[in-house]
């Protein structure tokens, strides 16, 4: 067990390391004015070169990469923001934005996941029944209609219907309702889809047939055997869903002007704030990788049957 965990963690760290290298090298292609803030046009060419030299940007790329990694590991320093908040450490900029995204995200996950799982359970109770048909239709529509379209339509008509403000305001609780509902919709759809699938898989197993033959009550079969086994693979999704709230919801946060993480990457890109872009991309990828890792580990803890020593068993 321990050996497996150590191995997985090391693999994940390796993946993050490779991603950092790729992103770092790619981002060296950005125009250099992204390091100067608003002063770029005011400086002469010599001053710019001086400035770049001082920041270590004229070194060969591997040297820069090494310095970046050393700073990251020793003092968790990702550089200074140059445009969004001038000369403020990138980590501070990000830390100020995270809480609001996490707040929205956690609420919608807390509402959406149980609802989605409940919907999935209802769908699996009777194949071709009302719940199954309605649920399948809902999942299909949410999958098929492009997210930007339904999200903007919800904003347009939802705000009219509820009389809520069109954009987010800190002092208005009403303005939080629609973003949270919009975030919940896809979460419900994904969870319902997988829950139904795992439930149906489990219902078709032989041991369920045996239980039926033994005349175990249907509800007992359903909740003690089917549900418990179907929930195990669902736990795989939980860590990533929770960690993923840090990403924020790019589309929704932009639609409702929520000052969270989702908008930050876009703002940084449009403002050409190189250090911030780099930090965000690396952070997002790292969260994705560690979310998956935690999901696998959690699943192994929840279900002792999953043998970790067998190659690829936890995947």
């Amino acid at each position, binding site marked *: 067990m321990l050996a497996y965990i150590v191995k997985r963690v090391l*693999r994940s760290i390796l993946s993050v390391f*490779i*991603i950092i290298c790729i*992103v770092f090298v790619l981002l060296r*292609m950005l125009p250099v004015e992204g390091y100067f803030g608003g002063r770029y046009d005011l400086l002469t060419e010599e001053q710019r070169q001086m400035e770049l030299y001082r920041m270590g940007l004229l070194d060969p790329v591997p040297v820069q990469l090494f310095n970046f990694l050393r700073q990251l590991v020793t003092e968790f320093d990702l550089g200074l923001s140059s445009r969004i908040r001038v000369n403020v450490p990138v980590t501070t900029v990000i830390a100020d934005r995270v809480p609001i995204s996490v707040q929205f995200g956690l609420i919608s996950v807390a509402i959406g996941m149980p609802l989605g799982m409940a919907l999935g359970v209802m769908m699996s109770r009777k194949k071709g029944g009302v719940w199954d048909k309605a649920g399948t239709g809902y999942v299909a529509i949410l*999958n098929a*209609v*492009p997210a930007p*379209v339904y999200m903007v339509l919800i904003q347009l008509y939802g705000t009219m219907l509820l009389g809520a403000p069109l954009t987010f305001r800190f002092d208005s609780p009403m303005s939080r309702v629609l973003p949270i509902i919009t975030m919940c919709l896809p979460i419900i759809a994904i969870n319902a889809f997988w829950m139904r699938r795992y439930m149906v898989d489990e219902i078709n197993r032989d041991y369920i047939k045996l239980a039926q033959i033994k005349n175990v009550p249907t509800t007992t079969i359903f909740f003690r055997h089917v549900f418990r086994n179907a929930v195990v693979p669902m736990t795989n999704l939980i860590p990533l869903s929770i960690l993923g709230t840090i990403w924020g919801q790019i589309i929704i946060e932009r639609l409702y002007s929520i000052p969270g993480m989702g908008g930050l990457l876009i703002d940084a890109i449009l403002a050409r704030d190189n250090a911030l872009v780099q930090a965000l991309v690396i952070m997002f990828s790292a969260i994705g990788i560690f979310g*998956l890792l935690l999901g696998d580990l959690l699943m192994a803890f929840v279900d002792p049957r999953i043998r970790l020593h067998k190659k690829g068993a936890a995947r």
Partner: protein
Amino acid sequence: MSKYNVWLKTANKLEESIIDDFRARVTASPDDLTEENAAKLPAEYFQFAHNEFKEAERAGYSNYSYWGSTIRMFFRNKMGVVTFAILVVLMGFAFIQPILPGQLDPGTIHDDLTAVPVRFYRNVPPQFFEGRFFLGTNAIGQDLWARMWAGTRNSLFIGFTVAGISMAFGIMFGMLWGYVRKLDFLFTEMYNIINNIPNTIILILAAMLFGPSIPVLVAAMSMWAWIGHAHNIRNLTLMFRDREFNLASRCLGTGVFRVIIRNLLPQMISVIMLRMALAVPIAITGEVFLSYLGLGISQVTPTLGNLLEMARPLMRAHPYQLLFPAAILSVISICFYLAGNAFSDSADPRNHV
């Protein structure tokens, strides 16, 4: 060579002794038929019978044809047929729309600056058949109807090229990945890395580094999408490569290339078609998404994404500018999704008969 000369035609194929015997008999006996009677016989009596290898192979088998069954199954599915028909009509119309009479140019700004007083045609509401602008105009006075169809064309182009390119690479590398076990580690590591970077970030980075244009978007989306396809194909390859039929085929000395093309690929058609069908709307949505972020293709090239983005700030005042492109986009996505699912169901041999 005479048409009726059986001897000449047949004799070439016979051995010398038989030829001699045959010649002796033919020359000895007089003609059985007079010339008129021979002319009355149907010409096909004098044609060689076909010796078709494929026909010979069929003997003893049912006349099952994979594509025939697939198409028959597909037409039994009403939802699939309807959505497929809608798609065909929509795409057909998008491509013939510019050559229909009375269409306006999508790029022209229709403000009349020479008139006195100056006339603006901005944010004209839909006029349908009562005026020049069928669906009205946008904020700078361009015809929305023409822009909508031009946008549909461009978006479909993006969707189809991304689906085609990524699927081609996906099949190629997926087969290699599944078939050549030594490459497994390399590809798996690559999959872990590419798949862990969110799609949106790759798109955003590409748009930022190389500037948003159709080729850049297509390249960026294909770059991300191929590995997902490849992973799926790899799993299928692993499933089929050790099946008995393939083992038998390999024991008979079939080459790797032929095994892949003739034995494995046909088993995967249904999955491939489904992924292709779903890849098109995903790519179209990707473009819409980028436009939302303000990183999309410039307004000079209309796409569904930048039509929506241009209409979004005005959605309270002029909802029609948003609703029509949104409707087209949704219809296209839903139809691809449903038709793709219907087709993959019917292409799955397990559902045949």
